């Protein structure tokens, strides 16, 4: 029999507003990150400036984590048959907590204002905890045999560890805890970007790349073992970081970099074999993303061996802006028009096709602006010139405003079709 709570029905899928609220506020955080660079270029002096910490979290929490959670509300029922209980209410609370929490976090970090860090930890910790509990309730009877549902669970655990470490750091910064900040910080970054976001991206890619880009499947060993293997190495790496075992830590960092590069190269390789010869904007976005990941991983390894401030900065720019933002944007451009189409078809029986709801031209222009912003950020970090950094900040503001406008246009088309 079908396990309780497992269904394939559209009716079981969440309302349009459930994921959409996440997708609508996320670009505003991206634009805020750009505005911060524009207003205070000195924040790029090192990864440790309060401004750099604020910008990183505007992007990582305000944009990336927010979109990922919104998308999970939508895809858990489709790829795993898991129905999140009371998804409407849960999404409203999670979204509010994450949004206000991200604002408090960025403000608290940027202004070294510890009074904001406590509410940030409560809101972000509480919001994520609520989501994870709801997701695991939905997933509790779903078999773990398949790669994507299993790896989604691993990613959720990765995010829990990352946020717990983040809360620890915030408490330490506020003077409530005494610990080795650098150690906890390294662990926080590793778990957030790899244990959480990286594994989630891989879990989504196992299905998204072969199915939507019509490529061969990922090699079976990769889908079967990559996420678990990466999780296991991440645990060992964490032990070496905690134990301050420098050379073992570097060796395991290199293993993790090789694992990540294997995923990125494998994705690019599959995309080269795509049966679709028509240019697809999501495929382009993935290509920018995978190329940036590979370059960013190289910077991570160089940063291990070099004292120069620029390498961690470049790694951060390439992995966050070039890697994650590219693939997330690429997926948003599929998810939002499809949901608009789906809800229109359900509500009024007919809908304009995907490309009428979301034409290619503005996506192409947006991706060009995104690539220009990435190039400007890399050059600005290398050169360190104040005006170049301001220009990069301006381009980042521009790309996120463009993304926001494109999403609003889809919604405008949706409303018009709904009213017609």
């Amino acid at each position, binding site marked *: 029999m*079908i396990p309780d709570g497992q*269904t*394939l029905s*559209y009716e079981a899928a969440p309302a349009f507003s459930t994921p959409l609220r996440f997708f609508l506020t996320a670009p505003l955080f991206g634009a805020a990150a750009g505005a911060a660079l524009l207003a205070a270029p000195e924040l790029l002096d090192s990864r440790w400036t309060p401004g750099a910490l604020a910008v990183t979290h505007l992007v990582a929490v305000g944009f990336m984590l927010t979109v990922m959670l919104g998308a999970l509300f939508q895809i858990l029922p*489709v790829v795993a*048959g898991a129905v999140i209980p009371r998804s409407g209410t849960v999404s409203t609370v999670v979204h509010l907590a994450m949004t206000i929490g991200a604002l408090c976090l960025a403000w608290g970090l940027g202004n070294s204002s510890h009074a904001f860090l406590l509410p940030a930890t409560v809101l972000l910790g509480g919001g994520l905890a609520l989501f994870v509990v709801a997701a695991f309730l939905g997933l509790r009877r779903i078999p773990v045999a398949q790669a994507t549902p299993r790896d989604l669970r691993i990613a959720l655990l990765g995010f829990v560890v990352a946020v717990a470490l983040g809360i620890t750091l915030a408490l330490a910064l506020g003077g409530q805890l005494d610990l080795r900040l650098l150690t906890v910080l390294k662990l926080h970054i590793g778990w957030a970007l790899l244990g959480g976001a990286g594994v989630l991206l891989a879990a989504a890619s196992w299905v998204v790349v072969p199915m939507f880009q*019509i490529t061969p499947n990922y090699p079976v060993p990769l889908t079967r073992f990559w996420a678990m293997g990466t999780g296991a190495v991440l645990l060992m790496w964490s032990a070496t970081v905690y134990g301050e075992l420098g050379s073992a830590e570097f060796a395991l960092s290199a293993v993790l970099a090789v694992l990540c590069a294997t995923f990125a190269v494998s994705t690019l390789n599959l995309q080269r074999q795509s049966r679709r010869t*028509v240019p697809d904007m999501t495929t382009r976005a993935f290509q920018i993303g995978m190329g940036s990941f590979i370059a960013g991983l190289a910077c991570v390894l160089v940063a291990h061996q070099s004292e120069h401030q620029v390498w961690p900065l470049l790694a951060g720019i390439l992995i966050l802006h070039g890697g994650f933002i590219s693939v997330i944007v690429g997926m948003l451009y599929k998810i939002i028009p499809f949901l608009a189409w789906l809800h229109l078809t359900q509500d009024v029986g007919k809908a304009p096709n995907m490309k009428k709801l979301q034409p290619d031209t503005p996506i192409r222009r947006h991706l060009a602006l995104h690539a220009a912003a990435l190039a400007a950020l890399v050059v600005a970090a290398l050169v360190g010139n104040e005006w170049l950094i301001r220009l990069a900040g301006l381009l980042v503001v521009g790309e996120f405003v463009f993304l926001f406008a494109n999403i609003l246009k889809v919604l405008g088309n949706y409303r018009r079709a709904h009213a017609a």
Partner: protein
Amino acid sequence: MSQITSLMTDDHRHCDETFARAETAVAKGKWDEASAALEQFANELEGHFDAEESLLFPKFEAATGMTEGPTKVMRGEHAEMRSALARMREALANKDKDDYAGESETLLILMQQHNMKEENILYPMCDSQLAGSDVAAGLSERLHARA
């Protein structure tokens, strides 16, 4: 991967390849080639739906007693894909590249989210409910006869 899941998943991928051929031919303005590829795709898609609707789903419904469950949802999605396919045919008949690209993109996403549900949820259920039956052999026969 079990028999039914494996067989039907492979057939999804096979249909995808023909879908991509039609898409490429339209983009290049090769209308005759596009028409042939789209008709082949339609034939493969209809054969796949038929194998499910007349064999797999009834067997699953008989084994589980569920006629209002996932198979009903899947039949509904088949109907939506048939409508999308009709709109693609219309765009191709009008030699309208943009319209075809939009309808084709819509069908692709509709089809793949449908395939995800079948491959991740419904087929594994069929494999466990219909283990030891000859359903997989029957499906294989129908899918091969279609080609």
